[in-house]
Each structure stands twice: as C-alpha cells, then as structure tokens.
C-alpha cells in the first residue's frame, strides 16, 4: 500500500517492480472469471520464476502460471475451469509429476486465510473440515515450513472452544493468515489513485487485495478524475491499499469480466486440447505468450471478431446466446 496521489503505470513496470523471483503472489478471480490474465502473461513474458502462489478456486491464471513453469509452490482449494477443464490440465500434470509442491485447503478456508491477513490477525476459526484429510495430510512438511519464514509453522490447528460450548460448538479449526508479497486483481473500474469498483461478484478479491503487502490493479476502465467518489457505496477497495494501477482493456481475457465481456469458449476449448500435450503446450507458450509483446498485441492476434463475439450484453453483463458448446 501507499498513499501517493497517482499510481498509474504500465504493466511491464508494475510487474517488474513488485513480482520478484521467489515472491509470494496471489491472483484474484474465480475459475473462468476475472483472472488477471494480462498480468499473468506479463509474468510469463518476464520469465519470473520460483513463485509461491496463493489462490482459492482459480482456473486459467493458475494453470498458465503452472504450465509456464513459473511456480514452485501452490496453496489452493480448487484448480478447475468448469466445463472446459473440470480439473485444470497443466495443474493436474504438475501435481502428478511432483513438479510443484502443493498444499490443499477448502475454498472457505482459503478465503478465510486472506480475510485473516486483511484483518491483521494471525488466524481465523471455522467449523469446516473436521475429520478430513485436509487437516491430516500436509503438502508442506513441518521442516519445510520451519525453514521458510514466509510460511506459518502449521497447516491447520484444531482448538477446543475456549468459551465452553458457546454457539453449540465444541471445537474449531484455525486457519493461518496469508499476507502475500503481492496481489494482482483485475477490476472493471479503477481511478488514478487506486480506488476500485468491481461489478458483479467480488469473489475473494477484496480480501486478497487488502491482505497483500503490495497491490497491482489492472482495469478495464481507468478513471482519471475523482468520479468514482460520486458513488462510494459501489467501491470495494479504497486507494490506500493500492500500489500500481494499470489500464488493460480485456485484461481478464480469455476469462470473463462481468459487464464487459464473457469468457471465450473457443479459446478455452482450444487451450484444454493443447494443454494435454507437452509439445503443443510448449509451442503455445512460445508463440502465443512469449511471441507477443503485450496484452494489446495478444488481443490483436485474437482478433476483433472473437472479441465482438464475447462482448457483453449491456443489460445482462454476459454475451447472450454465445455458442458455448
């Protein structure tokens, strides 16, 4: 966070300044929606490696960061892209090949971990997951945790309710806070100071943003005056949390951005096919990502027709009648 008066920058500089080799990163969005894809592609272009990634139920963003070998560790609840890949394909491959270390939580637990970080407390309690292997099996063994100051010493802790049986609850599971070095989210509107307005569901973006040491915001519309303050009830993240604001139209593509565009079913189906084959996937990263200079360049390649096809119906916020078979 910083309280500077303007934080507008470009994506190359924003990523270079805050996303470092080995950093602990979290990305916003959910499955096929509002993943900060432009930033993900920029991370891949800058060849930043050894990232420790946090997500809750992220699809495309997680899968491409894994596929491009940018990660060493992943903490996550769900790796999937809905109908397009009920389990993300490069994610599945990487876990099966033990190419990344992984720690599993439930979705609520991941959301609570970001909430704890944003609230400034070391943990929050829940009544979820008793009796499951989410508690019993650890992906990061104690020694690994001990040698890494950025990780809590334990995955989860069971605690007897110190208030007796208050709320009819005998015990709770404590989930440790996450404070990522940097969080990247993609929102519909942000102003030059970093005030953010998200349209539609916010997922855990607000908690991810507020728990981070540094926050990069990419946005569909950059507002260069104080107009967002005309309707403060609609803003979810005040500027004091932001470090960098970058204007990137279609910055969530190929995932959806409510009110602006839908997910691209053509891209996602094609991606699922390519991701199943190592050689094809290598080629995809080389040509599609490393072979483009910027997200704008990538959007040019995707082409006006495809973007028009997924453009959102103003009333509904998605592309009505889009062929999604």
């Amino acid at each position, binding site marked *: 966070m910083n309280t500077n008066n303007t934080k507008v920058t470009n994506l190359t500089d924003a990523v270079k300044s805050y996303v470092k080799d080995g950093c602990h990163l979290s990305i916003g969005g959910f499955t096929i*929606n509002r993943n900060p894809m432009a930033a993900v592609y920029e991370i891949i272009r800058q060849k930043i490696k050894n990232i420790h990634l946090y997500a809750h*139920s992220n699809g495309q963003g997680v899968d491409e960061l894994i596929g491009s070998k940018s990660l060493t560790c992943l903490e996550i609840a769900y790796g999937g892209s809905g109908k397009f890949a009920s389990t993300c394909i490069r994610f599945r491959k990487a876990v099966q090949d033990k190419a990344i270390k992984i720690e599993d939580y439930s979705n609520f637990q991941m959301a609570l971990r970001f909430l704890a970080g944003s609230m400034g407390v070391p943990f929050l309690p829940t009544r979820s997951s008793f009796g499951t*292997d989410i508690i019993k099996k650890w992906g990061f063994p104690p020694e690994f945790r001990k040698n890494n100051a950025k990780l809590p010493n334990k995955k989860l802790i069971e605690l007897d309710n110190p208030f007796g049986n208050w709320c009819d609850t005998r015990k709770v599971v404590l989930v440790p806070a996450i404070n990522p070095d940097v969080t990247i989210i993609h929102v519909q509107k942000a102003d030059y100071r970093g005030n953010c307005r998200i349209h539609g*569901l916010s997922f855990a973006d607000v908690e991810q943003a507020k728990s981070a040491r540094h926050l990069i915001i990419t946005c569909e519309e950059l507002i260069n005056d104080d107009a967002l303050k005309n309707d403060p009830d609609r803003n979810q993240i005040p500027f004091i949390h932001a470090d960098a604001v970058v204007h990137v139209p279609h910055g969530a593509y190929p995932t959806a951005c409510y009110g602006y565009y839908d997910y691209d079913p053509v891209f996602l189906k094609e991606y699922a096919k390519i991701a199943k084959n190592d050689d094809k996937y290598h080629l995809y990263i080389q040509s599609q990502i490393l072979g483009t200079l910027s997200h704008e360049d990538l959007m040019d390649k995707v082409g006006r027709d495809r973007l028009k096809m997924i453009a959102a119906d103003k009333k509904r916020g998605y592309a009505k009648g889009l062929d999604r*078979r």
Partner: protein
Amino acid sequence: MKPIADYTLKEMMTIVAAREVRNNDIVFCGTGISMLAAMAAKKINAPQSVIFFETGAIDSKLEELPLAVGDPRIMYQASCNGGLIDSFTTMQNPITGKHVVGILGAAQIDIYGNLNSTVIGDYNDPDVRFSGSGGACDVASFVPRSLIFMKQEKRKFKRKLDYITSPGYLDGPNGRKKAGLPKGGPYRVITDMGIMGFDKHTKKMYLLGHFPGISPETILQNMEFIIETSNSKEVLPPTLNELKLLRTKCDPHCLIL
C-alpha cells in the same frame, strides 16, 4: 435391460435429484449436473427454492445455464452479489445454514458418504489428481442435508477412500460429533443406476431405489462395498412434463445433457 429410449440416464439423474429438493430449501450447487438439478428443481417441484452459489450469488435469474460457479450468468438479477466469505458464512451460520441443501459430486465415495475429490493414490505421490475440495468440504461440513451425484462404478464406490476431501458420517453414527462437526451429513446419493439413502441409526448407505431396467444386483456389482438393498423400489421414470421442463427451460442447448 436398457433404460427406456425416450430419456437419457443424465436426464433421469437430474430429475431424481431435483425431486429431492423442497420448497424453501436454499440449494447450494457446484457446476455441471448439480447446477442443472438445482435449476430443474425450481422449474419442476420447488419453485420457491433458492439457488445459491459458493461465489456469493443468491437467487440469480438464470436465463442461460452457467458452466462454472464463476460464470457471469449467475451475477445477473441476483438478490445480492456478495463474495466467497458471504456465501460460506451463510452455510456455516446455523440460522441460515439449516435451510441449505448441498448438491455435490466426487471421484470416490465410501459407505458413510465420505467423499474424495482430491487424489487417487498417495497424497504426496498421486496417481491421479483432481480439482481438490473447492467448497465441497465446507458444504459437507455445514449443511444438514446433501445430495451427491456419483457414477455407479466399482472404482468410485470404495471400501476405503484414498483421501477424505468432504466429510460424510466419517466412521459411523457418532463420527461427526466426535470429530467436532455440526449435525447433518449426506442425505441421498444419485447414480446412473439408482438412488441411495443413509440409515438413521447406522449411518450406512442403503439402496432406496433402482432405476427402471436396473436390478439392485447390478448396482451391487458396481460397488466395492455391500449395502442393504432389501427395501429398494423401482424409481419412477421422468414424466413427460418433467422432461419437457428440463429440456426446454433448463438446458435447451444441451450444454450439460
């Protein structure tokens, strides 16, 4: 005997599940067939049930079938567009949570309705990796009643799970209480061959009904463990009206069906 030609097994499963939803239920659903079942319930037999997504959308106007719980289609005409924290705390809160019915799926299930959606094989050296819990563990922990979709296969109905992602009755009648979980647990398992319930006392799965043309024996042959089948009845096939509503109002473009 094959199922009657005028409906598919997926349609049958969807409708059988939809029938288990009651008016005033708040229906938590994931993607795919579970979302379709929730939509079908609203169109067929529980018009006042409320569809509720783990992403935080409540009572959305679903003009088109969402393909993921993060699909923008669920954000249109919702009562409230919240976030993950709102959604899961609505289930964890016993005041609202007691009205929630969860619709889940998994890779493996055992006789107590525990589910695995994480790995086949050793957790630290898996043969097959699945998506992981998502919100399923949370739903299964909190809600009083859940419906589970499964394929009727031996490798899916397992004596012992490779990984417990979502708690059912854990190790039996006292399992949830001992572990620290709220009351509740799995209510029905719906497969492509039949529907199972859980015994009130033993908390073990039993066969409640077999689909037309499927015998209880066939079902047992497609499970690794044995369940009580003596009270199983043939399940009524979808009515013409149910099928019509499902096909025209829920999934006209056959995205799931």
